[in-house]
């Protein structure tokens, strides 16, 4: 089972967490960017064979939200919330 490093509780089983989705850049002002950039922000996320940045919620633990970089090929966590690993 994937172990996710919680900054408060240490490495915990994935079953304690709820997936919070990929990290997106901040919402742009739709009237200040081009239509192309606006629809890209709404509909596209990076889909690499490699690390993705995503949020997880330690809902069956301490309740904190955290951000990790996870490799989509292996599920290895390549960067933990504290920048370690």
């Amino acid at each position, binding site marked *: 089972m994937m172990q996710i490093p919680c900054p408060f509780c240490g490495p915990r089983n994935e079953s304690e967490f709820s997936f919070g989705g990929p990290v997106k850049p901040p919402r742009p002002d739709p009237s200040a960017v081009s239509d192309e950039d606006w629809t890209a922000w709404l509909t596209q996320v990076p*889909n690499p064979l490699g690390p993705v940045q995503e949020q997880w919620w330690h809902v069956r633990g301490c309740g904190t939200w955290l951000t990790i970089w996870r490799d989509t090929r292996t599920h290895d966590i390549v960067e933990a919330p504290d920048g370690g690993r």
Partner: protein
Amino acid sequence: MQRYSAFSLLRHGINRHTTWAPAWRSPPLKDRYDVIVIGAGGHGLATAYYLAKEHGLTNVAVLERGWLGGGNIARNTITIRSNYMRDASIPFYVKSVALYEAMTRELNFNMMHSKRSMIDVIQNYPMMRDRRRRQHIMDIYGSTYEQISEAEVRRRIPALTGGGPDARLPVVGGYVHTDAAINRHDAVAWGYARAIDAMGGEIHQQTPVTQLLRGADGRIEGVETPRGVIRAPKVAVAVSGHTTTLTETVGLKLPLRTMNLTAFVSEPVKPLVDVIVNCPDAGFYLSQSDKGSLVIGGAPDPGQSFRRDIKQTVFEDTVSAMLSLFPSFKKLKFLRQWGGHLDIAHDASPIQDETDVPGLFITAGWWGGYKAIPAGGLTLAHLVATGRPHPLMEPFGINRFRHLDYVMETGTTTAR
């Protein structure tokens, strides 16, 4: 093409089965074709089949990185159905179900098609309302959905003994989709391959595409493979989860994420369940194969994934959900598991279109694409050959994201 029949079986049997001709050739790879189809999975093969059959295009190469029938066409739960939600989706799947039903005769290959109905086991009233809403829309397009009582659900699925009045989610009723079927996935791949070959198309296994090639005018020019550059004025990408991996080689970004969807099978047991059982509230579905194994699927992995295996958390969640309704399955032994990675579009509907790179076509976002194979091939072949979308696929162009005209589909994932 050597026809298959009871007579041919007898004739070759007398010769101890040493006289069968190969079902398809392995011709030498040329450096130029009229159309290249990337991916000899269900959608790629169906596309090449309809290019030849409907449009007379036979100078076509289907390139496959692995072996024929080894991709997602072997990594699914062989469910064929048309109980979708949207006006845009239902006619397409009704067509696909009809093409599947005719496939054994059309390809002269036994698909072992078993039209056995799917029963949705409903455990709360909002889901009942969702199904009734679907039924009203499906009625328009000739798909079938019919409400049945809890007692009728239990009569048709005797093994369903959980979900009683004291359960957290008691069974409140069901919906029957009589068009639903299962068939044999290998036969779909082999039947198409044999028919394509007979009409003059070529299938090249062990030929991964590493890069798409664009000409100076921006048009697609061909593909690069370890076996050399292959040129064609039209290239169709039918690679499931790896669509963006390929399109990014020509700088094209798409609203697709790759997810892993898994399934597992039990040891073979005597006939026990003769319909496809879908439990959207509990979060799993199952059917019994001809060999007797229960084929069981649940939710996709959380997050993007290119791993084709099952996660322990997903497996445990699916099993505990299943045991809440089928407690006697506790004794079943688990035989094997698999995962398939597939891409899901932002609105969970497929994308089939010519891209911003002229001559480059994609068919992607087939979340549960097995049921869509014949119609998906029919429509893509139409688009590639004529340059215009097939009427059934018109709502699923890529421009819908530019106009924020989404086709939000909730009928895609069986389980949830």
